[in-house]
């Protein structure tokens, strides 16, 4: 059985740190995990003094397998993980177009990778295209789990387009759940082409569950590619130009859009507004009647079992899920339907 080898990434140079940046970690730990190392290479990210990790990361040249993989995360038992809301004091990858390696914060090559609990931000203030938080390009046999992350962009450049939170341009299997995306837009002088999640490759199998997308050109965009199976369940798209674009799997269901004829699935809701806690806090508000208790139970889903939400709080093992990245939890610890809501004091959405 592979051994987990944990290294601490901390731009704040905290006690016991191994690397200053995720990029340096990749340079130092790169190699064959399947041979003598027999290893799960873990980057545990911290932000001791609140400094951002500002170096773009390219993951390449590794050899991995399903059991000997790369894991990049913030440990929820530590104080460096976001709490479901963007925080400038928690670990984050933050880049400007002018200072980043072109195109991507993370580009992967033929690998098994898990990314959990990160914050990624790109400020697009130059006329550069293809600003992608996670980008997989022209490869095959990729196997990614991307969970509990917050992706955001601020696009002030008028001519920047083709920006994405996650851009799947590689063959492989991708499981994407409990993520929040917002502000992923195209510059005002260009035609909308940006997306929270975009698929643009053949031979893709993607399970995209319980994500929340706000204020993006496209929420979920199946651009092109043959032999693509993209199953979308329990997702929210709000304030997007086009929430769901393309032919998603017939198994897709229980999605929400505020646009007409948009969300795929017989139980999905269109022209439906979700009520969040605040302008940049996408936890479900106690007054919400659209997403709370309205989703499919995916606790034991064969393709992607979702057992917690973006805050690490438990999803119900039976009964309806909430739709989106947040599971509405009361002080008592359970999900409640809105009709019973007045009987509880809320911790938060």
């Amino acid at each position, binding site marked *: 059985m592979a051994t987990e080898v944990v290294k601490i990434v901390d731009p704040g140079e905290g006690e016991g740190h191994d690397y200053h940046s995720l990029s340096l970690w990749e340079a130092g730990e790169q190699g064959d995990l399947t041979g003598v190392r027999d290893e799960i290479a873990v980057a545990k990210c911290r932000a001791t003094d609140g400094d951002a990790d500002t170096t773009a990361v390219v993951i390449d040249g590794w050899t991995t397998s399903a059991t000997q993989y790369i894991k990049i995360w913030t440990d929820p038992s530590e104080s460096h993980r976001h709490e479901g809301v963007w925080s400038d004091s928690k670990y984050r990858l933050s880049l400007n177009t002018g200072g980043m390696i072109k195109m991507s914060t993370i580009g992967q*090559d033929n690998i098994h990778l898990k990314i959990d609990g990160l914050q990624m931000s790109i400020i697009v203030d130059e006329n550069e295209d293809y600003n992608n938080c996670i980008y997989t390009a022209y490869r095959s046999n990729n196997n990614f789990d991307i969970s509990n992350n917050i992706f955001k962009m601020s696009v002030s450049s008028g001519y920047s387009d083709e920006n994405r939170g996650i851009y799947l341009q590689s063959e492989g299997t991708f499981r994407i759940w409990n993520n929040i995306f917002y502000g992923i837009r195209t510059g005002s002088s260009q035609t909308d082409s940006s997306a929270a999640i975009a698929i643009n490759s053949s031979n893709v199998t993607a399970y995209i569950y319980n994500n929340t997308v706000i204020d993006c050109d496209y929420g979920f965009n199946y651009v092109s590619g043959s032999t693509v199976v993209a199953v979308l369940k329990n997702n929210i798209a709000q304030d997007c130009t086009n929430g769901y674009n393309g032919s998603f799997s017939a198994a897709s269901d229980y999605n929400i859009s505020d646009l007409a004829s948009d969300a795929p699935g017989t139980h999905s809701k269109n022209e439906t507004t979700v009520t969040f806690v605040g302008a940049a806090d996408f936890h479900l508000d106690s007054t919400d009647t659209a997403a709370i208790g309205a989703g499919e139970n995916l606790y034991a889903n064969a393709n992607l079992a979702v057992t917690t939400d973006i805050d690490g709080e438990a999803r119900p093992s039976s009964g309806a899920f909430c739709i989106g990245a947040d599971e509405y939890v009361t002080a008592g610890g359970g999900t409640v339907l809105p009709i019973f809501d007045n009987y509880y004091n809320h911790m938060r959405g």
Partner: protein
Amino acid sequence: MCEIIVKAVSVTHSDPDKDRRGCYKRGYPVAVYPDGTKWGNEERLPKFVIIKIPGVPVDNAIVQKYTQMEYEDTPNEDGTYPVYRRRLWTIRWANLPAAARNRLANDGELIIKVGSYSGTYDYTWNQVKSYFRNQKTGLDETENP
């Protein structure tokens, strides 16, 4: 003052194409940090060495260019450029003077004097700059930070 963290060991991949495109090699500059950086437990021998250049700011263009990747000349169909090597520049490690190689192997650092710097140093920039080579052009460094 800036400090360049440089790969001290080569990573290899069995696929020659992936090896060239993806793997860091000994002598590849990885990142530039300011003077006084508290290097992490792994940011030192045996994986890395530090080239210290007192008096040169961390955002100096000459120093920063050493961390650029080398891209192919022909773009992908979407206009982006594939990476050809992880670094455009490399330090010709094997060609360094024996004393410099020993200093790196033993202490994990070299101090390079640039300009009016008056502290202790191992070599001047003029003595070592030609060991920085652009892998695409095959030409060695001639400029000063």
